[in-house]
């Protein structure tokens, strides 16, 4: 057993700052395994999907004629990776509720809103650079694979390619932030992940099956995954929004839930 008293007062300059909250959130993010695992999982999902698609495309009857969008082929992993990355966003908040850590967190930061913003900051700061690097890697790797198979390829300098690469990283980052918001609103890992899966993955397909065809396409293009397609596709599919409209709609899907999360976080008992 050691000393029983505090010998030295903590330096009087220490006080609560937003920078401090962000640093605290960073310590939390880096010190649990799930963070690294989800980022790694998302990266693998991107790489494996992109490279498999790149090496199997052109092997059907259409041959090289089937390759109309070599960029999109290598980035097709975004569809799956955004879910894994979204889970990271969910866990950053829902973990705190399931373990009780949120009580320590909100006691240190009673104004609460900085906690949510701090979480968004570290999630964006982690996911965006990581996924940007992964997007470039899988793009270059995939083009090399397709080039070796004498299929059409794209280069980073081609029109729309850079936007697609950056846009893919933005999409995954945005979905991670939606995850943060859902985790904070629902306070439950299972509930938030299910909601996220339905929103970004199932709704486009389900909507296609269930909605009346007269307004199906008009409604579905406003879903987050369709909106992000509008600004990440070099060769856009028909029926999507324009790229800037898509960006605005996607941004609304990110900011809207976050605002709701902030309002609820301030008002509810922890």
């Amino acid at each position, binding site marked *: 057993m050691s000393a029983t008293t505090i010998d*030295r007062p903590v330096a009087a300059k*220490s006080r609560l700052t937003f920078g401090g909250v962000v640093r605290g959130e*960073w310590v939390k993010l880096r*010190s649990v*395994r799930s963070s690294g695992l989800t980022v790694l999982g998302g990266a693998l999902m991107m790489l494996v999907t992109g490279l498999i698609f790149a090496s199997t495309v052109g092997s059907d009857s259409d041959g090289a004629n089937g390759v109309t969008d070599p960029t999109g082929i290598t980035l097709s992993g975004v569809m799956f990776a955004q879910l894994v990355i979204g889970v990271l966003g969910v866990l950053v908040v829902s973990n705190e509720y399931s373990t009780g*850590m949120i009580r320590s967190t909100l006691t240190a930061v*009673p*104004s609460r809103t900085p906690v949510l913003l701090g979480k968004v900051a570290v999630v964006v700061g982690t996911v965006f650079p990581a996924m940007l690097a992964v997007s470039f890697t899988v793009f270059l790797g995939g083009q090399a694979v397709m080039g070796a198979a004498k299929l059409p390829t794209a280069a980073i300098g081609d029109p729309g390619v850079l936007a697609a690469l950056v846009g893919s990283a933005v999409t995954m980052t945005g979905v991670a932030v939606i995850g943060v918001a859902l985790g904070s609103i629902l306070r439950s890992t299972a509930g938030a992940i299910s909601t996220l899966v339905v929103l970004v993955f199932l709704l486009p397909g389900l909507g296609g099956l269930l909605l009346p065809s007269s307004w199906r396409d008009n409604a579905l293009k406003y879903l987050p995954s369709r909106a992000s397609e509008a600004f990440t596709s070099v060769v856009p599919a028909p029926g999507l929004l324009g790229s800037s409209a898509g960006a605005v709609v996607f941004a609304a899907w990110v900011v809207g839930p976050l605002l709701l999360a902030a309002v609820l976080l301030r008002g509810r*008992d922890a």
Partner: protein
Amino acid sequence: MIEVENLTKRYGPKTAVDGLSFTVRPGVVTGFLGPNGAGKSTTMRLLVGLDSPTAGGTKVNGKPYGGHRAPLREIGVLLEARAVHPGRSARDHLLAIGATHGIGAKRVDEVLDVVGLAEVAKRRVGNFSLGMGQRLGIGVALLGDPRTVVLDEPVNGLDPDGIKWIRHLLRDLATEGRTVFVSSHLMSEMAMTAEHLVVVGRGKLVADVPVADLIASTRRGVHVRSPRTSDLVAALQGDGVRITSLGDGVVDVTGLSTEDIGTRALAGGIPLFELTPQRASLEEAYTELTRDAVEYRGTSTREAA
């Protein structure tokens, strides 16, 4: 300094805290006592703004908790429920909380040392025993070197060594001039550490008294052992005197001091083998105070005292 004024908290139809008002002063250990479900933990959660009150309010060191620029330096709190991610190490837990206030690794290591967790600082908290988890929680409370320390059931899960340690810690903190507010449902524990008591039952204030006064208010009789109890009873009988036989030549006398009893016995030539004033334990005083305020009582339990 903690000021609680007319504090009320309802969860749905249930009133957890009901118009509670009291003040906790610096320099002494103040015990916060009450049966389970009396509203102690709720009051503490309201104190640090985790829940918002239905009515009334609380102030810590003169301001509502959220109004301070460095909340962790004003009040350090250990709440009853665990508040740690099990996958994180003790050191990272403290670093993450400290970082919000610019409290760095140096202070964190110092605190780990104070609470006796320096050797396990890098182990995942999920593998900690209940007692180690409790020490970590106390470490969080001390992290900001706060002027006010609030601990909810701090001895829970601690071994005898740990219990002794926490008693010393609480007294030292109070001696340094801090406000120390400690809850317990165990009177015996409070008897060892607290000088002042705030007693609650069913969310209401039952008593706000110095420990010494509370004990004094619950007087008991005197146990007298003698081979000639019938002569003794005859010698002591009088107005306001109640004598109960306890068997084996022992009687319990109320209404007379030990001096009176000894003098009268001598006058009657009655030998006394034992003359013991029965001090009410704090436990009994507490039981009497909260008898009506116990929320959950086993049906087979006979009333104590």
